[in-house]
């Protein structure tokens, strides 16, 4: 296998996954915001909430369709570009993907059509239920995808079967209740909620700046800031939970994120900023925060967090242990039925580290022939790129805390200051629209790049996972995806802009009928009549 094919496959996966995740977080959050708005409509019967539902629903639809379209690529790419991975772990990894289809994707996709086409065909309550089913479906989708991804980070409930040359499931419950998956799920969907809240907030702020659709904008800000504040807090709390679970499941990733080259006496300090140097394994100009790392990572004052150097030494031991398993595996394979039971026992005893022996396949065809130098090189390979992780993580965390501040500000203004927002804050709200996407993409980068050199942590090296394809195959599809996705991106943004400019669809007849019914209680104190049109109505001013 050419290394080039692996690198190109990685590039393609990174590109298509990150592109897919431009649309997913907005789908996750906006589906719920829209369902909340429609629920308020059903409860109050006020046409403005129906307008809001339809307006944000339209933007949801433009975004949703690209999430669906690019999601297909993700599901098929495993088989296309990562066929050895698919064979090796399909017994475990395939199940959550299939369940996602059965339980979640069918639900959201079947009802999303009815959401857009069913306004006249369903009762109000029915339509609201449809909106919630779409939201629930989207969020369940995320659950199963993160169970699949969580297993790649922390492969529990599975063991290698020498007869089938692959990992097989030993406990579905362990895969399902994988602590990494659970923390990641809530962290990820919360990030989606924050993304949608920032989006709704920003677009609404734009309307307030332009003095358009104020009624819709104010109400939208009220919903988005409340929902966004809760979600922003949840992102940080569950992010911390992920960090805590990484301290015992993915020690190397944690050490790399923190640029912890050596084990420090507990509780370790947290490096606020610095310049990690992979070659010399030290961090220049580091600013430390004493104790913080130990407290976050282990939630204790006495437990140590291992540093990178110590983990490399540990990896070397695991490689040697894995070689015993590899040797036993080759013996079993040579004579499957006649092999002595002791050999199978030897294999079972050491098979947990089989993946480490496979790291040597980058250097030699038969890992048993590896030299001491090659074993050292393979052990060094277990260190991911420290500086990119270090920085990506810090930017993500910084943004995560910033969102709490933004949401809290708008929540307070919306709740206690009669919906009055200083002009500068409106401009700021527009300016930060892209920020949650940056944070979300960096989050995935930390999760996936931090797992290298593995596709499945400790089980299957990335270098072995790719399909047997030619560089030309990869270049053709890569060029295809880049062209195709770029065009779609431009079209998507242009439609979003068009529909944001156009503003909400006003159902004049319904609005007037509702006002006629409620005329008596809508008179404002300054003697003006009730608002005639939703977009100029503004009793607060």
């Amino acid at each position, binding site marked *: 296998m050419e290394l080039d094919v692996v690198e190109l496959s990685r590039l393609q996966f990174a590109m298509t996954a990150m592109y897919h995740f431009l649309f997913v977080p907005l789908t996750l959050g906006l589906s719920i915001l829209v369902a909340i708005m429609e629920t308020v409509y059903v409860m109050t019967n006020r046409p403005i909430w129906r307008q809001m539902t339809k307006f944000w629903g339209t933007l949801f*639809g*433009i975004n949703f*369709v*690209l999430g669906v*379209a*690019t999601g*297909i690529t993700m*599901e*098929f790419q*495993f*088989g*296309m*570009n990562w066929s*050895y991975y*698919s*064979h090796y772990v*399909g*017994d475990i*990894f*395939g*199940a959550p*993907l*299939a*369940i*996602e*289809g*059965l*339980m979640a*994707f*069918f*639900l959201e*996709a*079947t009802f999303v*059509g*009815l959401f*857009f*086409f*069913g*306004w006249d*065909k369903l009762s109000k309550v029915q339509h609201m239920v449809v909106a919630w089913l779409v939201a629930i479906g989207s969020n369940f989708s995320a659950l199963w995808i993160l169970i699949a991804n969580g297993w790649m980070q922390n492969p529990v409930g599975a063991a290698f079967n020498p*007869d*089938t*040359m692959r990992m*097989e*499931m030993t406990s*579905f419950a362990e895969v399902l209740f994988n602590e990494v998956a659970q923390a990641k799920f809530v962290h990820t969907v919360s990030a989606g909620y924050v993304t949608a809240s920032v989006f709704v907030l920003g677009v609404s702020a734009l309307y307030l700046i332009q003095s358009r659709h104020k009624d819709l904008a104010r109400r939208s800000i009220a919903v988005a800031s409340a929902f966004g504040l809760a979600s922003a807090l949840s992102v940080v709390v569950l992010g911390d939970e992920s960090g805590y679970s990484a301290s015992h499941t993915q020690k190397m990733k944690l050490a790399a994120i923190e640029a912890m080259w050596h084990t420090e006496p507990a509780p370790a300090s947290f490096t606020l900023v610095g310049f990690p140097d992979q070659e010399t394994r030290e961090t220049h100009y580091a600013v430390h925060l004493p104790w913080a790392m130990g407290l976050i990572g282990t939630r204790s004052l006495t437990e140590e967090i291992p540093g990178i150097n110590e983990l490399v030494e540990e990896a070397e031991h695991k490689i040697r242990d894995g070689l015993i398993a590899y040797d036993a595996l080759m013996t079993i*394979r040579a004579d499957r039925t006649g092999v002595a039971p002791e050999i199978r026992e030897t294999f079972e005893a050491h098979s947990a580290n089989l993946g480490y022996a496979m790291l040597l396949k980058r250097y030699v065809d038969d890992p048993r022939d590896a030299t001491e130098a090659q074993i050292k090189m393979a052990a060094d390979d277990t260190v991911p790129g420290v500086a990119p992780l270090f920085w990506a993580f810090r930017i993500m965390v910084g943004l995560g805390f910033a969102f709490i501040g933004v949401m809290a500000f708008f929540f307070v203004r919306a709740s206690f200051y009669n919906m009055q927002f200083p002009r500068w804050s409106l401009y700021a709200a527009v300016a930060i629209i892209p920020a949650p996407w940056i944070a979300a993409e960096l989050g995935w980068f930390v999760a996936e790049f931090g797992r290298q050199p593995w596709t499945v942590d400790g089980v299957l090296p990335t270098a072995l996972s790719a*399909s*047997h*394809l*030619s560089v030309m*195959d990869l270049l*053709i*599809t890569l060029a*295809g995806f880049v062209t*195709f996705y770029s065009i*779609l991106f431009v*079209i998507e943004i242009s*439609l979003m802009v068009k529909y944001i400019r156009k503003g909400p*669809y006003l159902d004049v007849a319904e609005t007037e009928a509702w006002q006629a019914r409620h005329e008596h209680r809508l008179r404002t104190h300054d003697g003006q009549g009730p608002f005639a049109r939703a977009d100029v109505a503004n009793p607060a001013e």
Partner: protein
Amino acid sequence: MILYELIDFDTLRVIWWALLGVLLIGFALTDGFDMGVGALLPFVAKTDVERRVVINTVGPVWEGNQVWFILGGGAIFAAWPPLYAVSFSGFYLAMFVVLAAFIVRPVAFKYRSKRDSATWRNSWDWALFAGGAVPALLFGVAVGNVLLGVPFYLTEDLMPMYPGNFASKFVGLLRPFAVLAGIVSFAMLLMHGAAWLNLKSEGLVAERARSIGQKAGIVAMVGYAIAGLWLMIGVQGFALGEVAANGPSNPLYSDVSRDGSWLAAYGARPWIVIAPIMGFVGMALTLRGLSAGREVSTLLWSKLGITGVISSVGLTMFPFILPSTLDPKSSLTVWDASSSHQTLFIMLVVTAIFMPLILAYTAWVYKVLWGKVTEADVTHNSDTVY
């Protein structure tokens, strides 16, 4: 876990082989008419309003229908990992083309009527045509290639390998028999799309659909008959030697020889002849229904015909799933290419819970949307429909 003990590994494998068929048929019956409608679009509808009528007949449902395709991919991954690994990477560039079609199609549905320009709309109409026609054709080509056998082999580590350069691998798929299979599948889905439009639209659009649908149905029937004869005289089949039906999923443990014909299956299991009969009867009655203008029954006959054609392929090949020409021993069969006992069992439980639910709410959605899409529907709700 009493049930787990009750269902043997080999039984589970047969169940999952059947479920694989159910998913493929489910995909062809639902998303099949979306593809057919897409391929018919430029020919049955000339004006913008007509085209919007055609698009809106599938507008609310294509998204759910497409999930059959996605679930098919997921279920193959979960239940038949070697099949997923070998076929998706082996048909690499063809898969990419299908993928491109399945990406452009949703976008075209959603974005086409969001701008008022004729160029914009016309471009998306042709995107919808390609998004329907190309996969309809390529799925058939893929099935044809599976019947012929695919040039791959597995290493001792079970890494799938495909010798040859990339161009020969893509062009190599277009063998005459495979192209014929592609034509059959394309014509069959055109017919299915026409049956759908016959039910959901009216006037000129429905009339044109009926006319094209009848021609397509004839092509499909003739092509299917020729393919059957071809299998009898021109295609070498595969035969599986002794194998433990509940043994480990390692294709290299079984012996496969290349002798006789695929059609030998009809000698061994005569009852499977019901599948091709269903195919012919279904398609013939669809033709009659289209010419007589019957609506609901025509669509049902079309579904029966498609079910017959697809199941005839599976039943003829059983227990083979993906035979290898290069190294017959590497061929994937029902007995050696599945997931583990545990995974198949868990997935069966999940499917048994959710499949009835899916069918129930999908039926409800179709019921809510029951009725023809008219030109007035489109012009009055211009802002909200596609």
